[in-house]
Structure formats: structure tokens, C-alpha cells
């Protein structure tokens, strides 16, 4: 009891700083510490002395070092910044420096502290409000709304017709497609045929002469056979087995076995 009364101011400050340091885990970063230190100034947050606060904080970091406590990097960054701020506040302004003045930086720090303090107070007020399911209650026996879902299906005559047309198209033309194949002389067929005829083409002869029997008269059949036979001839030219010539546009195409 008695000894406590003898503790001087300096010791008190040291003890306070020490308890801060020991309890550093309980604080949420340097700003939190600064706010706690600021409160010890026992003035309106707007009238806080940032200079004094900087001194307090630097002392706190000193204590931590003495106690060999490891402070997280952001505490040290803040210490460095506050040391810088302190020098700015104490030294006359350097006219060549166009950065913010010490006063501006200090004002912003004060603003941050005031804002954090205000948010803390607001959070407390918020949590002190009446809360749902603690102080006031919603209907305990809500009557479920029964949901009746009516599904309306939509279809038009056009949908119907299109669907039907599609089915009919599929049915009608599948067999037709197969039949059509009969009127086609394929390139494979033409190539097969030409290879067997090459030996006879010692002299120039027209393409028409090489069309298969029965494919010359019907125009549809002739078109197909002409196209495939011509393609087959080109293939054989590429292979170096045939020569192909046409004297002028639309003139008959002539073919003969390659010399040598």
C-alpha cells in the first residue's frame, strides 16, 4: 500500500508502458496501441498532442526492446514513421520539401484515432441495441404459404405443323437419298475404270469417249459420269500417267497416255 504512494510519475509511465508491452498480443496493431496511449492524455481526441503521443509510442517500443519482446514489423514501421513525424514537428519546415507538413501528417493521425474511437463507440452502441431473438421476436408460428404452381404448356398450330413436317421430311427423303446414289458415278469408280483404260489411250482422245456405257444419254447420269471421270483423269495426271489438254475455252478435253 504504502510503497505505491511513493511511486513517482516516471515509474508510473514506465509501468504503464511495460504493461502495454507485456499485453501487446491483446492489441490490434499500432493504431490500437496509439489509441490506448492517447486515452492516457485524458483530453478530447481532437485536442490530442500527436507529438506527445509519438514520444509515448517510441518509449513503448524502447521498453519492448529492453524486455526483448519481439514486436511485429508494423509496430516498428509505425515507430520509424512517428520518429520521422516527431522530427518534422520539432524542426522548422524545409522550404525545399514539397511533401506534406508535419502538422498535416499529425492532423491525419489524430483524425484516424478519432475515427477509430468513434467506430468503437458506435459498435458498442450497435451491440447494445435490442436484438432479434434476444430482445424482440418474430412470429413463432409462421403459417406456411402454400405454393400452387400452375404450369401452362404453350404450343401453336405452327409448332405442330413444323414438328410434323420434320418427321415427314425425315421419312420421305431417307429412301430417296439412297436411290439418288444410284445415279451417281463416283470418283472411285471412275478412277478404277480409267486405270484399266489407260493402256488403250496411245493417241489423243476426248473425255467423252471414256464415259462408261449407259451413262452417255441420260443428262443426269452423263453429268455425274463426266465430272467423276474428269476428276479421275486429273488424279492420273498428277500421278504422271496421263496427259491432258484443251485447245481453247469450252473445247473438248483430250487425253492420252503419258509418253515414255
Amino acid at each position, binding site marked *: 500500500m504504502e510503497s505505491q504512494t511513493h511511486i513517482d510519475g516516471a515509474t508510473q509511465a514506465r509501468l504503464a508502458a511495460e504493461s502495454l508491452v507485456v499485453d501487446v498480443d491483446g492489441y490490434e496493431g499500432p493504431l490500437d496501441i496509439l489509441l490506448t496511449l492517447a486515452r492516457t492524455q485524458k483530453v478530447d481526441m481532437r485536442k490530442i498532442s500527436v507529438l506527445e503521443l509519438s514520444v509515448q509510442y517510441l518509449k513503448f517500443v524502447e521498453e519492448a526492446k529492453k524486455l526483448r519482446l519481439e514486436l511485429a514489423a508494423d509496430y516498428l514501421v509505425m515507430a520509424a514513421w512517428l520518429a520521422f513525424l516527431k522530427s518534422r514537428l520539432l524542426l522548422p519546415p524545409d522550404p525545399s520539401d514539397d511533401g506534406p507538413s508535419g502538422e498535416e501528417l499529425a492532423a491525419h493521425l489524430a483524425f484516424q484515432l478519432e475515427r477509430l474511437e468513434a467506430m468503437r463507440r458506435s459498435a458498442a452502441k450497435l451491440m447494445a441495441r435490442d436484438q432479434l431473438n434476444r430482445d424482440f421476436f418474430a412470429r413463432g408460428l409462421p403459417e406456411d404459404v402454400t*405454393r400452387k404452381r400452375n404450369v401452362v404448356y404453350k404450343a401453336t398450330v405452327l409448332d405442330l*405443323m413444323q414438328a*410434323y413436317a420434320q418427321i*415427314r421430311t425425315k*421419312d420421305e427423303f431417307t429412301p430417296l437419298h439412297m*436411290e439418288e446414289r444410284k445415279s451417281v458415278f463416283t470418283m472411285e469408280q471412275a478412277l478404277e475404270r480409267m486405270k484399266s483404260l489407260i493402256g488403250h489411250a496411245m493417241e489423243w482422245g476426248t473425255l467423252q469417249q471414256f464415259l462408261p456405257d449407259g451413262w452417255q444419254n441420260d443428262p443426269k447420269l452423263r453429268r455425274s459420269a463426266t465430272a467423276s471421270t474428269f476428276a479421275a483423269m486429273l488424279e492420273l495426271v498428277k500421278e504422271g500417267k496421263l496427259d491432258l489438254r484443251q485447245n481453247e475455252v469450252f473445247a473438248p478435253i483430250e487425253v492420252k497416255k503419258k509418253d515414255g
Partner: protein
Amino acid sequence: MSQDKPLNQSLFEAPPMGEQERMIEAILFATAEPQSKKQIEDRLPHGCDVSEALVHLRKRYEGRGVHLVKVGDGWAFRTAGDLGFLMQKESTETRKLSRAAIETLAIIAYHQPVTRSEIEEIRGVSVSRGTIDLLLELEWIKLGRRRMTPGRPVTFIVTQEFLDHFGLESPRDLPGVKELRDAGLLDNRPPPGAVPGVLKSDDDGSAGEEPDDFDADDDDQDDMFG
């Protein structure tokens, strides 16, 4: 009402009746179960007259949107009987018929009366029970006469509802294949000379042209539609 109370309770006065009413109102609003007088009493300060408060409260809610009602030996707030309709939320959803359904419907419309296996023959795929059920449920198709062939398969025909929905006077109003083609709804490739089996003449759905195997299938169907 004021029987067997503990001796010391008379030291505390019960809240005024209006306050008791408020309290019961809040309790019955917030509780999930109807509360008996005893349960209510247990929650209220000493000396409350639950019975009397309930009478007042019940009167207060007379003619309101919710009523104070007795449920067994408990009390609860309930929606007024005439407002029950508000507790139903009707929603309407418009859906498009599936392709299977619209094709099946089209075949029935164009070929009716038609059996299920005929539909499958025309579509080239089997018709699910759900598709037929949906069309039956929509009342767009119904059962026609049984086909007088072995197995006596059921046939499907379209209904008056179908005609109403599609704005047709009769199924004959459906455009024929030639008209579909003229309208550009069918591919304009030249029609082949011969048309195989399933392609029946448009304006009758006569059974005459069906292959025999339809009937065999239909046996199964009868089991299903019984």
C-alpha cells in the same frame, strides 16, 4: 383466479390489465406452439389474471385478420378463416412442350386414331409413358376406340380442348403435307415417286396400311394402359 399464490407475492402488484394483455399478445405471437393458460401464467409476473386477459385479447382481435383461438387447451393466433386464400401463392409458369411431346401430338392429330406403336414407327423412336401422360393430362388427347386387331390396342385421338387450344374447327383443318410444302415448311426437294409404308395419305389414318408387327407391340401397351 387468485388462488394459491405464494404468500410474498402480494407484496408485488400485478401489472395493469392492459399490460397483461400486451404480454400475452407478445407471448402468443412469438411462441411456436399454442400455450396453455398454465404456460402463459408461468411466464408472466405474479398475480396476472390470464383468463381475463385472454378474454380481452380475444375480443380485441375479433374481426381482425388474425384471431385468437383456442386449440385444445392452448391458445394461439391464427389467420382468420375467410383470409385463408391469402396464404396460397399461385404462380403460373408457361412452358414449351418438349419436342417429343409436340411430335407425338402432331402425329396423333394427323393420323388419328393412332396406336402408340404406330406413333413410334412414325417417329422412329419409342414414345415415353410420360409424354403420353402429359398430353392426356393436358386433355389434348384421349383414348379412342380399340383397334380391332389382335391385342386390341388402344388408339389415341385429339380432343375438343385440343381443337380449342389450337384454334381448329376439326382435325381436318390441319394443313396437309402438300400445303406444308407449299408453305415452305417442308423441304422443297422433289418428292419421290414411291412412298414407303408409314407414309399414309394425309386425310385418313386408316389402319389398313400398317404392318403386322404393330399389333404385337400393342399387347404390351394394353398392359400399361390397362
